[in-house]
C-alpha cells in the first residue's frame, strides 16, 4: 500500500523526481568517472617508467647492485633466460650485459651506464626502440654501433654517425676502450636517463668486457602487470640466490607517489559523495517543505508518523533505483568513448603542451568498480533522505492544513 502511494507521489511531481534521479545519476557518474580517470592516470605514470626503464621484474646478482663490476654476472644467466621465455606469465624477457664507464667525444666526456642488448629481445621489453628520434635502433649488422640519448648527444656535441669512444674496466680489471658510431639517438621522458644511459649490441660490449655470454641483468615484462608481486614471489622462491625485484622495489619513489595518489583519490571521491549528499538533502528538503500541506493532510486523515517516514524514504529509494541505471549508462557511454580517444591533458594546460610529450590519459573502467561506487551512491542518496523525512514528521497537521 505504502508502495503504491510512494509510486504515485513520484509521478505526481515529475520535475522534482527528475531532479533527484538526475542528481543520483550524476553523482554515480562522477564517482565512477573519477575512479576511471585515476586508474588511467596511475597506469599512464606507471607504464611510462615500466616501459622505458624498469620493466615489471628484474634479476641481478646481489653484488651487482652495489658495485657494477663486470664480474658480478647472474649465475646461469642464459639458462634462466630460456626458462623465463617459456613462463606462461611472461610476455617478453631480455638479458643484458651492463657496465659503467666514460663516453668521450672530441670536445667533451661524460659518465654513463652502458647497456649491451640484443635488439630484438630488448625492443619487446622496453619502449626505447620506439623513442628513437634520429637514426635507427640497430637496424643493420654493423659492428660497434651505439644508441645514445638526445641530452647526451647535445652535451658531447655529437650528431648521428659521429664517432665516440667508450672507456671502462673489463672483467680482468684492465682499462678497456672501444670506438663506436652513433647509429641512433633516442629521447624519453626522463632526461636524466637520456643523459646517462647508452645502448650497444650485446656482443660488442661483451667482447670488450670479456664476459662471454654472461648476463648482468634480466628484465621481464609480464602479460598482466597486476600480477607482478605474485609472479615475483614465485620467482624469488625459485631463485633464492639471485636478487629478484619488482619495479616497486627498484623505484620505491614511484611506488610511493602512486600510493599517495591512490589515497588522494579516495578522499576526492569522498568529497564528491559528500557534495552529492548535500545536494540531495537540499533538494529533498525543499520538496518536503513544498509538500507540507500534503503531509499534513495525510497525517490528519490518520497516517501515522512511521508510515509517513517510510513513505518518504521509499520514494527516495525508488528514485535512486531509477537514477542508478541512468548513471551507469552515462558512465559507460562517456568513459567508453574517452577510453578510446583518451583525454588530452594538454588541452587543459598551456604550459603542458609546451613540453612536447603527449600527455593523454585513458580512463579505464574496471568491473570491480561498479559495485562499490553504486553501493556508496545508493547509500548516500538514501541517507540524504533521512533528514528531510524527519523534518516532515515535525509538521503539525493543523498548521500544515492551514498553509493552504
Amino acid at each position, binding site marked *: 500500500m505504502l508502495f503504491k502511494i510512494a509510486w504515485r507521489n513520484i509521478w505526481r511531481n515529475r520535475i522534482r523526481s527528475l531532479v533527484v534521479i538526475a542528481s543520483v545519476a550524476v553523482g554515480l557518474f562522477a564517482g565512477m568517472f573519477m575512479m576511471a580517470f585515476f586508474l588511467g592516470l596511475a597506469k599512464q605514470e606507471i607504464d611510462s617508467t615500466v616501459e622505458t626503464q624498469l620493466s615489471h621484474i628484474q634479476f641481478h646478482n646481489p653484488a651487482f647492485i652495489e658495485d657494477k663490476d663486470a664480474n658480478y654476472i647472474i649465475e646461469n644467466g642464459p639458462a634462466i633466460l630460456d626458462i623465463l621465455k617459456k613462463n606462461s606469465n611472461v610476455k617478453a624477457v631480455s638479458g643484458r650485459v651492463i657496465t*659503467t*664507464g*666514460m663516453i*668521450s*667525444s*672530441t*670536445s667533451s*666526456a*661524460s*659518465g654513463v651506464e652502458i647497456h649491451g642488448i640484443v635488439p630484438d629481445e630488448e625492443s619487446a621489453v622496453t619502449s626505447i626502440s620506439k623513442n628513437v628520434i634520429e637514426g635507427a635502433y640497430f637496424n643493420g649488422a654493423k659492428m*660497434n654501433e651505439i644508441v645514445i640519448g638526445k641530452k647526451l648527444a647535445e652535451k658531447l656535441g655529437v650528431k648521428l*654517425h*659521429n*664517432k*665516440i*669512444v*667508450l*672507456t*671502462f*674496466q673489463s672483467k680482468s680489471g*684492465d*682499462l678497456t*676502450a*672501444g*670506438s663506436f658510431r652513433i647509429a641512433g639517438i633516442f629521447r624519453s621522458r626522463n632526461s636524466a636517463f637520456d643523459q646517462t644511459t647508452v645502448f650497444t649490441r650485446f656482443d660488442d660490449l661483451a667482447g670488450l668486457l670479456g664476459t662471454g655470454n654472461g648476463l648482468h641483468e634480466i628484465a621481464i615484462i609480464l602479460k598482466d602487470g597486476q600480477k607482478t608481486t605474485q609472479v615475483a614471489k614465485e620467482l624469488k622462491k625459485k631463485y633464492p640466490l639471485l636478487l629478484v625485484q619488482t619495479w616497486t622495489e627498484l623505484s620505491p619513489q614511484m611506488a610511493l607517489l602512486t600510493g599517495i595518489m591512490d589515497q588522494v583519490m579516495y578522499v576526492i571521491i569522498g568529497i564528491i559523495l559528500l557534495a552529492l549528499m548535500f545536494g540531495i538533502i537540499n533538494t529533498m528538503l525543499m520538496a518536503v517543505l513544498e509538500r507540507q500541506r500534503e503531509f499534513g493532510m495525510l497525517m490528519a486523515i490518520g497516517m501515522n508518523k512511521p508510515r509517513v517516514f517510510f513513505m518518504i524514504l521509499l520514494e527516495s529509494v525508488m528514485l535512486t533505483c531509477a537514477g542508478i541505471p541512468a548513471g551507469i549508462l552515462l558512465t559507460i557511454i562517456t568513459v567508453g568513448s574517452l577510453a578510446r580517444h583518451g583525454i588530452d591533458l594538454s588541452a587543459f594546460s598551456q604550459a603542458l603542451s609546451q613540453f612536447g610529450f603527449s600527455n593523454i590519459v585513458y580512463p579505464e573502467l574496471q568491473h570491480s568498480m561498479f559495485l562499490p561506487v553504486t553501493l556508496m551512491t545508493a547509500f548516500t542518496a538514501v541517507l540524504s533522505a533521512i533528514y528531510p523525512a524527519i523534518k516532515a514528521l515535525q509538521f503539525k497537521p493543523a498548521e500544515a492544513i492551514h498553509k493552504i
Partner: protein
Amino acid sequence: MKTTLNIFLTTGALLLISTFAHAQDAKQIVTKAEDNVRGLSSVVDMTIQVKRPAWTRTMTVKAWSKGEQYSLMVVTAPAKDAGTVFLKRVKEIWNWLPNIERVVKLPPSMMAQSWMGTDLTNDDLVKASSRIDDYKHKIVGDSVIEGRKCWKIEMIPLPSAAVVWSKVNMWVDQKDYLELRLEFYDEDNKLVNVMQGSDIRTIGGRVMPIKLEMIPVEKKGQETIITYNNATFNQPISVDFFTTQNMKKAK
C-alpha cells in the same frame, strides 16, 4: 728508341719504388718520431704552465719514465701541491697525495678528467691508443717549422681503433725526427686540438723541442705549456722503480 724506352722504364720503376718506399716511410717516420718522444728511459725536470682567460698556474714536475708504459711524476712546486705523485703502470694510473697520505687508483670515471688542471686528460697520459698501431699513415707534403724542413703526415685512425679523432696531422722534422706539430680533427673536419713544439735545443744529449704547447682551438685564451728544464736519457731504471710503494718515497 730502346734507350728512351729504357729510360722510361727505369724512371717509371724508380718512381714506383720511391713511392712505395715513401709509403713505408710514413709509418717508419712516425715510429721513429714516437720513439724519440718516449725514449727508452728518461728523467726530466719540467715546468707546466696552465693558462686560462682568468688565471695562470705554474707547477714544476720531476718525471721518470721507462718506455711508453711506465712513468712516475712528482710535483715539486708550488708548495701546496709539492709531493703529489702520479704513477702510470701500463694502463693504470695511481695517485699519491702527501697531505692525506693515501695511494689512490684512478677509476675509469676519472679518466676523462683533466690531469692536474691542464689541457691534458688522464686518458691522454694513459694513451689507450698508439699512434703507430692504430692509424694508417701517409705523407702528404712538406712544411717548414721552426726553420726545419718537416714531413706532413696524415694519420687516419683504423676503424677499430678507440680514437675519437677522424684525422690527426703530424709534422715530423726530417733531420732529427722530432714531432713538431700535431693537429687533431673531428669528423666535421674541424680542428679541435693542436700540439706545437718549439725552441729546439740539445738537452741531455738529445735534440728536441723543449717547449710543448697544448692548445684547445675552440677555447680562447686557454692552453697548457710544458717546458723541459733538464733531462737525462737512457739512464737505466728498473721496472721496480715504478711501484706504488715507491711513490711515497719519490723525490
